[in-house]
Each structure stands twice: as C-alpha cells, then as structure tokens.
C-alpha cells in the first residue's frame, strides 16, 4: 500500500467527494488561491474553480453561518477555519443554528456540513493559535465530532463526514499533517462512531485521540523493550463515542490510561473514564483509571513550556510504569 502524508490523504478525500457530488464545496479564508494556510486545499481552486473553492473575507461567523444556510438548502459545504482557536468566532452559527436546526424544526431539516481546522500546539504559535478543544463541541447535541489520527483515517473519515447529514466538527492536529501512513488506492470510507485498535496488547489499554495516538504508539514501542504489552485504542470520533470497543479492551487488559491533548478539566477523558467506571469493565479493573492530559493553562509561547503543557511520549511511558508498579 502506498504511504501518504496525512495532509495529502485529507486533500484526496476532499477531492474525491467534490468529484462525486457537485453539491460539495469548500469555503474559508485563503483556501483558494493560496491553497489554505497549511496547504490542505492546495490545487483544488485550480481544479474546481473559484465557485467551488471559495475564498472568503476574514469573517468566521459568516463562514460558519453560510455553511449552515447552504446546507439547509441542499448543499454540502466543507468550511475551513484557519486555526481551531477561531472556531469560537464561528460558535453561535455552529452551536445555536447548525446544531439545533433539525431538532428545533421538528426533524424537518438537515444540515449536512463539515467544519474543519487545525488544532494543537507544538509550533510556537502561542495561546491563540494552539489550543485543542474538540471536546467542547461534543457537549452540543446535534454536532458530531471527529478527530482522525492517521492518513488512512483522515481520508476515510472526511469522506464519511461529508456524506453525513449532520453538522460535523472535524479536528485535525497540525502536527499530524506531516505524518505518513498507508492509504489504499481503492476507495474506502471510515464510518463515524467506530473506534479503532491501533495496537493490540494485553497489559494495559491506552485510550488516545488525535496526535496522542502517535505518542501512545511510540510509548508502546518503548515499553515493549521492557516487556510491557500495551494496547492502543483510538476512539476516532468523540461524538458518537464507541464505548463498546473501549470497554472490551479494558476487560481484556484490566488497566487503562486515557491520554488527551486538551486541557484536563472537563475533558473527553473524563467522559471515557466515567463510561468505563459505570460499565461491565469496572469489575475487571486492577488499577484506578488514570488520565493524562494537557495542563489547565493556555498554551505558552516558549517551546520548553509549550512542550510541558501537553503529554509527551516520556510522560506516557512514565505514567504506565507507575500504574504497573
């Protein structure tokens, strides 16, 4: 299978859906002529023209709102928000409109839209260009939330998200764009709401999402040297959340650590922990459920502090050794 970069796999997914359905279009800041701030949409403007790859003014509220409106009227917009941090400006349109339209209208409307953007720290971009907060959106009934960790998943999930009839928040960690992985030539879809076991193991389960999957796998590799056999479960979508796969894994290993990129307080890891604690896996636990997450701080500028702000491979290794001791 050919190896591809995450960013290229994502673009392929977008492109295939645009070819498949003429109602799919892209809208966002600098997505056209410039090809996107990170280059996700590079070349699509040239291929599909300015009507289907729409450059907008700097107006996040109107970008999100235009996506909602177009979706209500039969289109399938994919809106790009340049940095995840700016989702807050798009929030009302997304949360009070897009997320609620169907319910408020008694099930008589649908809002098939995707709103996507890069989150996360690690580039020195400081507090307003680095935060990860996909879990916030999982708190709003009506939204689906996706956070793919691999090139394979990002392609399959963007395609599923575009075909979904509900508003989908699609969170990409910006450090993942340059990660390589296998992507098949033939068409495939990764359904929303299905977790994936990224590595099989029997001693402990790591539940990790987005960039933390990469770090969890690296930690697992290091721990293997010391005879510790780690299982890595990637929920892939936060909403809907596939608790079944997580519960089964914990029943098998008896130990679990949840690793998040977001700040600790009220994070999705708490949801997963509560899900495990109240499930049939509870009786199988040989150790307390452990969470590892970002510090409860805005992301600092200085690269050392920035690195310290979110879990790194060595933090995961250490935490697992502590649990197993």
């Amino acid at each position, binding site marked *: 299978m050919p190896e591809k970069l995450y960013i290229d796999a994502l673009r392929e997914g977008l492109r295939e859906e645009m070819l498949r359905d003429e109602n799919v279009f892209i809208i966002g*800041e*600098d997505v056209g*002529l*410039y090809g996107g*701030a990170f280059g996700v949409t590079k070349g699509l403007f040239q291929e599909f023209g300015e009507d289907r790859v729409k*450059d907008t*003014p*700097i*107006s*996040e*509220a*109107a970008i999100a709102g235009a996506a909602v409106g177009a979706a209500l009227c039969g289109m399938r917009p994919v809106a790009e928000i340049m940095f995840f*941090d*700016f989702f807050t*400006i798009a929030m009302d349109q997304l949360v009070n409109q897009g997320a609620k339209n169907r319910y408020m209208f008694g099930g008589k409307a649908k809002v098939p839209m995707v709103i996507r953007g890069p989150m996360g720290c690690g*580039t*020195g*971009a*400081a*507090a*307003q*260009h680095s935060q990860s907060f996909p879990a916030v959106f999982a708190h709003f009934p009506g939204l689906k939330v996706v956070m793919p960790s691999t090139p394979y998943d990002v392609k399959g999930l963007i395609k599923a998200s575009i075909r979904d009839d509900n508003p989908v928040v699609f969170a990409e960690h910006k450090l993942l764009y340059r990660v390589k992985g296998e992507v098949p030539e033939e068409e495939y879809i990764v359904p929303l709401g299905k977790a994936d076991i990224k590595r099989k193991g029997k001693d402990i389960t790591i539940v990790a999402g987005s960039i933390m999957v990469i770090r969890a796998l690296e930690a697992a590799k290091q721990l293997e040297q010391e005879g510790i056999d780690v299982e890595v479960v990637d929920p892939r979508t936060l909403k809907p959340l596939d608790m079944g796969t997580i519960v089964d894994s914990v029943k098998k290993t008896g130990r679990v650590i949840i690793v998040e990129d977001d700040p*600790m*307080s009220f994070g999705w890891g708490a949801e997963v922990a509560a899900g495990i604690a109240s499930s049939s896996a509870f009786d199988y636990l040989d150790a307390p459920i452990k969470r*590892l997450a970002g*510090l*409860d*701080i*805005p992301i*600092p*500028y*200085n*690269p*050392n*502090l920035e690195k*310290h*702000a979110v*879990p790194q491979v060595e*933090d995961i290794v250490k*935490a697992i050794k502590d649990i197993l001791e």
Partner: protein
Amino acid sequence: MNLSQELLASMYRKMMKIRKFEQRVSELFAQGMVPGFVHLYIGEEATAVGVCENLKDTDYITSTHRGHGHLIAKGGELKYMMAELFGRKTGYCKGKGGSMHIADAKIGILGANGIVGAGLPISVGSGLSARMRGTDQVTVCFFGDGASNQGTFHEAMNMASIWRLPVIFVCENNLYGISMRQDRHQAIADISDRAQAYGFPGITVDGNDVLAVYEVAHEAVKRAREGAGPTLIECKTYRWRGHFEGDPTTYRAKEELEEWMAKDPIPRFARYLEENGYASRKELEEIERSVESEVQQAIDFAEKSDLPDEADAVTDVYSDLVEEGRAR
C-alpha cells in the same frame, strides 16, 4: 502644520527603530532564534509613528498580530520586546506570549493580538473606562483592511459612535489580508467610507507619509479628547515582507512590491527633513547608527536572559489560583 525639530527627530528615530528592529528579527527568525510566527511591519512605519506621536503614555492602544511597530511607536522597550521574541523570562510576557501577545500596561499597550478583529471591541471598553473614570485618555485601535470584514469591526464602531467614545480607529490598509487582495475581500476602495454608516468622520490618508498621518491623527485625537467621539482613519500602505516570515507570497506581483518599495516612508521623510533644514544627512546617519546599536543591545539582553522554568507554566492563569493539583 508647524512641528518642532525635536518632534520631527523623534519621529524619524522611531521609524528607524521599527525598521532596524524588524530587519534584525527577520534575520533572527531565519536563523531559528525566534520560534513561532512573526509578522513584520517593514514598509508601514509611518502609520504607527504618525499616529502614536500624538499620544501620551497614559493613552491606550490596541494592536494586532503585526504589532511590533505599534509597540515601538507607543514607547515599548526594545530589550523586553526582543527578550519576549526569544521566549525569555525577562520578556514583556515572561516568554509566555511571544510576538503576537506583547503588552505593556504601564504605557497603555493593551496587547498585540492573535485574533484578527479582536482589538476593536476592546478599544470600546478602554474608551468607555476613560469616560467612566472621567479622564482625558484616548484609545487608538489599530487593525488591518482584512479585519474590517469581521463582525467585531461593525459592532465596535457602532457602539463607539452612540456613546461618542474617545476612540480613534486606525485601519492600516496594506492591500492584503494574507493572500486576499482588497478588491477580492471587499467591494469598496476606501475603508474610511464605512464610518459614514456609523455617523462619524472617516478619512483616508497616505500611510507612507508620516506627516500626513500625524496631521490627521492629531485632529482625531483632539476630537476624542474633547468628547466629540470617534474617527476612522484609513492609512494606505503596504507590507514589504510576506504575511508572516516564511510566506512564499505567491499571490502578489513583484512589480507591485517594487512600486511600493519605491515609496519607502523613511527616505521620503529623510528627504523632507534635509530639504527643509531640520536635519543634516550626518545627523540622520547618526540616528540610524544609534538605533542600530540599541537594537544590538536588545539582542544581547535577550540572549543573556534566562529561559522560564517549567514550574512557571502553571502560574499567571488566575490572579489567585495555581492549579498544580491538576498538573501531571
């Protein structure tokens, strides 16, 4: 306008300070000494200086992602700015903020800003506070042509107008918001036209002519101090560098850049000073050299400064709490 020799020299020095600071930052960024994003102000110096020379230390400014020029013009100290860019403990934000978040409350700098358009409502708040506290402080709100399409622009302008707040909105129209040329992002040519919709004056000025900017800003600051309400000043200018350092700038023509570089505000002002006998070539060169050494000192200061400790990561989130309990 009749300006003192002292004021003219100060303007020249500040423009030069911005230019030299930015040129060194560009080099340092290329060498990997400055992490993250830097957005340089080179080419736009006359705007910040022409406006800020009308302000007192007690007046406020709100700035943008492209903020170094505003900060220097308002009196920010190079060494603390440079230390911040280097991510050092001695920097303006203790290394926590970086280029896009430099603030100095002591001289009314309410922060550079990573969120386009976010400074506009904040300037309404600082204007309101001056009004409520009964002071004569004014606020200058800097923002770009791109920012004028954010909802916050309209909300802030309207609110400032109904309350006749002492706010001067200064739009730096450098023709682009990243890759979006102005004629692709709005259907008007002069952003100052938008003031009409809110019932206060809007003026367009050559942003590369420091004296023209000074004069227009002078009038606007006077109006604001006298309680006559806000003004929108649009300064037409151009950024020479990419949107950020490292931007390939594929979206604009080389000729356009060259055309604007020929309108460099600094030699233009130097010519004026010389031709009118305000300064000799030699004096201007001395200013240039003294500014260069000041920038070098700032770099030395930054390089010698300590890096923050890991423990500093969790402080300054709240005024009272330090949530070490939740740390790993």
